[in-house]
């Protein structure tokens, strides 16, 4: 693939990685967040600190882990702490700069649902649940959300509020970037990815999506970013 041919997932990982400042302490989940943080380490922010909720602080995986507790995380960490210590001293202790969250549903204020579809006591779909999310959402200095854009996910009203949107600073989707704007901190489309019509993002959002007056296009992944990303993906697949 050339630099102009990249997948939607790659664009999401690249855009989230770019937003990490050098030296940020990141509370990382599996999947795209893990890919984004490892990409930041491999490109502009080598001192990014990866903290996985399994207790590994300063993990430097050379391959992408499948679970947050893979052995490679413990082997490469600066220190491994117990889970009570992780949540009490490090997260509640406000030592985390950026927490990453995903969800099954998000509303216009960045509140997230990862608990149930339908009612709590008689759910249509029982999801895994919040795990660390309620406290990550209120104790990390800021929260990055990574989600694929669709009306099923971007909803007018959550079936259940698993975590608060109060510290969400950015939502990176496969179509663009949403950021809280105004006194209501309503999520507003501030960037579209290359070639994406903002109308598509509107259609994929279950509430009347605000589009920023200064809407911009995300720069496409550079060759350096794509090379680094694919090297991580290849290692992870072996």
């Amino acid at each position, binding site marked *: 693939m050339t630099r102009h041919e990249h997948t939607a997932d790659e664009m999401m990982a690249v855009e989230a990685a770019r937003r990490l400042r050098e030296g940020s302490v990141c509370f990382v989940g599996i999947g795209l967040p893990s890919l984004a943080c490892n990409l930041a380490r491999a490109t502009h922010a080598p001192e990014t600190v990866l903290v996985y909720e399994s*207790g590994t602080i300063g993990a430097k995986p050379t391959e992408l882990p499948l679970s947050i507790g893979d*052995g490679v995380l413990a082997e490469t960490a600066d220190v491994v702490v117990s889970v009570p210590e*992780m949540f009490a001293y490090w997260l509640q202790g406000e030592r985390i700069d950026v927490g990453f969250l995903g969800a099954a549903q998000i509303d216009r204020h960045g509140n997230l649902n990862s608990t149930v579809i339908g009612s709590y006591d008689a759910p249509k779909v029982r*999801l*895994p649940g919040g795990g660390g999310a309620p406290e990550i959402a209120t104790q990390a200095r800021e929260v990055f959300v990574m989600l694929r854009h669709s009306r099923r996910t971007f909803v007018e009203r959550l079936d259940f509020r698993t975590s608060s949107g109060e510290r969400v600073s950015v939502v990176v989707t496969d179509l663009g970037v949403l950021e809280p704007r105004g006194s209501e901190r309503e999520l507003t489309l501030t960037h579209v990815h290359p070639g994406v019509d903002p109308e598509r993002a509107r259609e994929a959002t279950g509430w009347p999506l605000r589009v920023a007056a200064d809407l911009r296009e995300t720069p496409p992944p550079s060759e350096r970013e794509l090379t680094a990303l694919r090297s991580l993906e290849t290692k992870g697949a072996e």
Partner: protein
Amino acid sequence: MPLADAVARDVRDGDVVALEGFTHLIPHAAGHELIRQGRRDLTLVRMTPDVVYDQLIGMGCARKLVFSWGGNPGVGSLHRFRDAVENGWPAPLELEEHSHAGMAAAYAAGAANLPFGVLRGYTGTDLAAWTRVATIVCPFTGQKLSAVPAHRPDVGIVHAQLADRRGNVQLWGILGVQKEVVLASRRSIVTVEEVVEEFGPVAGAVVLPSWAVGAVCLAPGGAHPSYAHGYYDRDNDFYARWDAISRDRDAFRRWMDRHVLGTSDVGEYRRSLEVAIA
């Protein structure tokens, strides 16, 4: 002590049982023994119920689940857990759902012989309305904090790497809440990869002295498909395969009949899987 004897002696129908392991050192062999011995009406406690709890729930061992995240890590849903919650199969499952921070605080409080754990948590979440959590006021600063009732399981079960001849236990790598659950529980069972004459120091290791542990049982490979740091890796393929096995009630029962009910211990279980793959 043989694992089957420890389970027969220490785990009764209706007990509150916590099999812990945060991805690492999950006591699968002990969970399988609970299934073989047909335990019923258990209240199962665990931060991250995954495959072994899916198996216990699907085999009808559980009445209630106390947890904070119930999925197949890196793969998706736990289908037996979902079937129990969504359809009441094979039996309805009562839930007490917490956040990870709340569960961790509850275990730490139990280990410390306190009635509740305290944390800044459960704010901005609907969970608070559906679970056992209360707001308390700090007597010194007036700050509002959350209290969760301590976990005091009847039986705590974990897996570890080593025991020595005297029954001291050593574990290292990702530590989860292994130490807390053993110290919070009235009785405890620890399965280990290996028993040695004497163990040496390992960086970052936790040691549980023999007098703080109940039964110690040799069960090499007893964490599979989870892993034991320094012994074997996580069987990521198995977790991926579990998705298809567990999706269908009949396929699930056939798998359990063959690999758990049809085997007598962890050695036979491991051999039955090798035959199935070959």
